[in-house]
């Protein structure tokens, strides 16, 4: 039941996008998101759509997995569209009762919807093609310069990878404890809100205890192997750019130039 929740939903398959350096994917995604917010006309979004379609095609991840992420923000999307549609001042297009839809409102609503959709799909391409560990590795390397100003970059990324690693374990643990308490007659479903919240105590207390126990064990195991933070630590597989990564950067930059150029020459649209 609870195992159906997927977080950091990596989709295992073989593709050139999967093989890219995580830094390329991280920076590429950030640049793509920036481009989404600087685009001001429909032809720009057409370019973004084509770019996204090429990347998805290359990633070999079925499209339905991309759309899965959309479900979570459907409500947010709806609210944004509705508010923009009715509350933007400007030239009236249609009006009924107290509501009126303006030309500007329609335009911003569509833009907002496109932006959010592309944003979610774009970032799920990244998470679907990169393992969480790879992602934190990439982040650590990208943030390395911040170490100069005493930001504990290594520790932050270590914490992130441990947290990600423990999500499936804790989910499994929750499932187990839940079953054990159901076997003792616990009821997690019926009753009002207060009763439901109370019924979570037999689940949460053992879960916290086991989380602390695991954290303790892990800390001990790490210390037993002489772990002492990031200083002087080397990697077994250090990240290094290869030809394909450079090509990917060029591809993203070309896309950026194209969106800016399209935005300039087709200002009329």
């Amino acid at each position, binding site marked *: 039941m609870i195992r159906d929740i997927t977080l950091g939903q990596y989709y295992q398959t073989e593709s050139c996008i999967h093989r890219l350096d995580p830094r390329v994917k991280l920076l590429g995604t950030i640049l793509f998101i920036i481009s989404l917010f600087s685009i001001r006309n429909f032809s720009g979004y057409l370019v973004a759509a084509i770019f996204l379609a090429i990347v998805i095609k290359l990633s070999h991840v079925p499209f339905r997995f991309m759309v899965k992420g959309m479900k979570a923000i459907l409500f947010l999307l709806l609210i944004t569209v509705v508010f923009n549609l009715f509350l933007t001042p400007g030239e009236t297009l249609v009006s009924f009762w107290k509501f009126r839809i303006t030309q500007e409102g329609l335009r911003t609503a569509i833009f907002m919807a496109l932006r959010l959709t592309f944003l979610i799909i774009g970032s799920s391409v990244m998470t679907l093609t990169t393992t969480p560990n790879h992602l934190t590795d990439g982040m650590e390397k990208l943030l390395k310069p911040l170490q100069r100003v005493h930001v504990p970059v290594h520790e932050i990324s270590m914490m992130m990878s441990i947290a990600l690693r423990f999500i499936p374990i804790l989910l499994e643990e929750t499932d*187990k404890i839940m*079953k*054990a308490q159901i*076997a*003792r007659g616990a009821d997690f479903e019926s009753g009002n809100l207060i009763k439901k919240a109370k019924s979570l105590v037999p689940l949460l207390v*053992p879960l916290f205890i086991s989380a602390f126990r695991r954290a303790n064990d892990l800390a001990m195991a790490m210390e037993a192997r002489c772990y002492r933070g990031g200083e002087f630590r080397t990697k077994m597989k250090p990240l290094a750019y290869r030809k394909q990564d450079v090509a990917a950067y060029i591809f993203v930059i070309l896309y950026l130039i194209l969106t800016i150029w399209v935005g300039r020459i087709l200002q009329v649209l």
Partner: protein
Amino acid sequence: MAILLNHVSYVYQAGTEMSVTALNDINLKIPDGQFIGLIGHTGSGKSTLVQHLNGLLKPSSGALYYDGEEYFSQGFDLKKLRSKVGLVFQYPEHQLFEADVFSDVCFGPTNLGLDKKEVELRAYAALKQVGIEDEYFYQSPFELSGGQKRRVAIAGVLAMQPDVLVLDEPTAGLDPKGRDEILDQIKKLQKESGITVILVSHSMEDVAKYVERIIVMNKGGILFDDIPQRVFREYEKLEEIGLAAPQITYIMNKINKDLYPVSTEVKTIEEAKEEILRAMRLQND
């Protein structure tokens, strides 16, 4: 009163590429008052099977019956079933949550909707049955030793007074003394109250002394279902699937082959001693 399994199959994550058949066409009859050992290698499906017995999992196909009533049929009382078929999970001490031992044991019977007095009587009886002394009743369960914690957790299920008690690897991670204590107490309980006990384990050695019937599972199916002596006779087949007969079976087979004719169908060291002495006396006569 019995549990019946009729062509029960269970598939994890059915319909996806990751689907795994955990149980494959299981037919079983579990009559009253038996002490049964359910043995299988890790991943043989034994934990999945016991979760079916109290309705935590619903079979993908096939049906289960308790007392002739089909599980999950219309009007079937799942809560009542769970009070009748008590399931103690692996490492049950991980489900303790109350501030003191006594309240934790009260959790199960309270959920059955019994009045306070009855709940406390049952909790008291259950704690006594597993050999927890009064002085521990109002301690935090987290301050007890590993073996004590486990016994408190087992008491938590016993307090619901089930007719069938299923224990999933109740001795995992305990030292030999703690293991024998728990198994002896369960045997005593089974004898006194006449309940059915199903002991899940991957070690023949542990269960040989206690059970009267052994069910061996392999790859989601039932390989053997017989009295221990006859199951141990198949020790070569057991080895093929990564299990083993008790050491005493091997010794007796060796003696039988190389020294004297002895019966290889003994379960414990005591029985073996008698059998060897008998054979030696015969030899000397």
